[in-house]
């Protein structure tokens, strides 16, 4: 549960040292690139680049395997489902009754799956190598309002706590003889009410207490804030940003100005 929310692993690679603002910008730029590219080859190359960066982040695969499994399943699902809705084009590879598997549809399925793969995994690079509080602080530095940033930080911070609370609630109800995953639809729905109501009540009590605690520590007393550690762009950060801008700009120019099929 905890691992699902916080993918960060301590490390000292160039990705860990990179200014979080550069990382966030780069990830956004690479996401845009994934939308711009439309050929399977180019998207495949982008996915390879992203995977290379994931490897360079030296994040233990044991900790992140589930995240990749999730993306991989999604990709497989897209490849399987695409031809069901897209039966256009020639040549037909196989057909069964009303179902037709055509080569262009298969190609489009693969392309979309690869694009989704890129879009999902590129964010992993940020999440694997950046502490959540640094992500939030970088967003605030980049112009997001501080209270939005704080709200985001608190939600992230309380995710594992909330997960543990739900675990305890399920335990408490199981001790009262409740069996999850059994019975008809009505019974199952009712079972979840037994978890949802205490979960919401606990969350609201926590939120209430937290807001009092924040106020008692003078939250909002001054609009401007100071920070213990500040971000400083180094030459390597500028270089990384330049590299990513080029990675986006080159294919973009080739595609739009030169009309290349990327």
């Amino acid at each position, binding site marked *: 549960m905890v691992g699902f929310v916080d993918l960060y692993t301590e490390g000292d690679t160039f990705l860990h040292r990179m200014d979080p603002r550069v990382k966030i910008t780069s990830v956004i730029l690479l996401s845009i690139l994934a939308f711009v590219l439309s050929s399977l080859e180019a998207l495949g190359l982008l996915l390879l680049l992203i995977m290379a960066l994931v490897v360079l982040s030296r994040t233990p695969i044991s900790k992140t395997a589930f995240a990749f499994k999730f993306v991989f399943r999604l990709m497989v699902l897209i490849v399987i489902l695409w031809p069901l809705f897209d039966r256009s084009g020639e040549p037909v590879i196989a057909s069964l009754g009303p179902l037709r598997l055509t080569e262009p549809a298969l190609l489009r399925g693969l392309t979309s799956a690869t694009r989704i793969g890129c879009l999902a995994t590129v964010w992993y690079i940020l999440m694997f190598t950046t502490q959540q509080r640094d992500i939030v602080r970088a967003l605030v530095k980049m112009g997001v309002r501080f209270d939005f940033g704080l709200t985001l930080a608190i939600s992230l911070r309380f995710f594992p706590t909330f997960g543990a*609370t739900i675990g*305890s*609630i399920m*335990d*408490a*109800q*199981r*001790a*009262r*003889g*409740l*069996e999850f995953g059994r019975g008809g639809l009505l019974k199952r729905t009712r079972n979840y*009410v*037994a978890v*949802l*109501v*205490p979960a919401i*009540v*606990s969350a609201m*009590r926590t939120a209430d207490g937290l807001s009092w605690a924040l106020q008692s520590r003078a939250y909002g007393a001054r609009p401007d804030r100071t920070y213990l550690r500040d971000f400083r762009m180094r030459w390597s950060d500028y270089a990384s940003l330049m590299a990513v801008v080029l990675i986006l700009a080159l294919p973009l120019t080739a595609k739009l100005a030169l009309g290349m099929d990327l």
Partner: protein
Amino acid sequence: MIPAPSSVQGSDKIVSITDLRFTYEGGVEAVKDLTLDIRKGDYIAVVGGNGSGKTTLAKNINGLLRPSRGTIMIRGHDASKMAVPEIAKVVGYAFQNPDYQLFCPTVEEEVRFGPSNLGYSHEDVNVKVQRALDAMNLQHLRTKPPLSLRLGERRRVTLASVIAMDPEVFIFDEPTTGLDTEESEMLMQKLRNLNAEGKTIILITHDMRLVSEHAKRVVVMSQGRVILDSDPRGAFADLDILRKSNLEPPAVTKLAHALKAYGVPVDIISPEELVFHLLRGSEG
């Protein structure tokens, strides 16, 4: 380990734990080689510092956690082959935080939830619910929404909801946390009544005064092991054991220890006993 005196209770074993070991995902060994028998009519206080394994032990007994090694027999049946609701018919577990379980619109429905899950007949459920509401003094709050009640009352609702399931053994996890003295005394009196009716009570607590006043048997845990299993008198006489498990005996016992040089016995557990010994000393 000091064995429990045979005089504690009869020999009617309800729960029998042998060489229990429990390791959490991530490698924390919370309970190690623990052997314990729980007999009918016992009133056991399980005490120990935070992280000593008390709650892990309790969750193993009622099946919410399953032993990594060792066996738990419940009424002669292997608990590993029993589903949680099946175990819940014998061992009831009242969680510390009432907000983790209350969800019904009225107190009565809340109390009804447990026994209904266990498949008792409608009439049986009615009888059990009324008995539980009586036992916890909740009849006047029957139609109130449980979440609107005070903490002490919410706690009583959670206990009633376990009592209504009519188990033989009750596990109460820190039932008096957050209650004032009066609420706490009242609650403990209710538990005593249950015990007097022949129910077995396992009380998980930090509060040594509760232990000295209510428990018949004290199981002291430290680092996942039982380091002492005795009556309260014996447990409080051994300051070293208590210190080892981050516990402090009740003030009156500490006073008795301090007065040891004046001939006061160290196994005193109530103010009345201390007064008795002091008066006898001054007469003699």
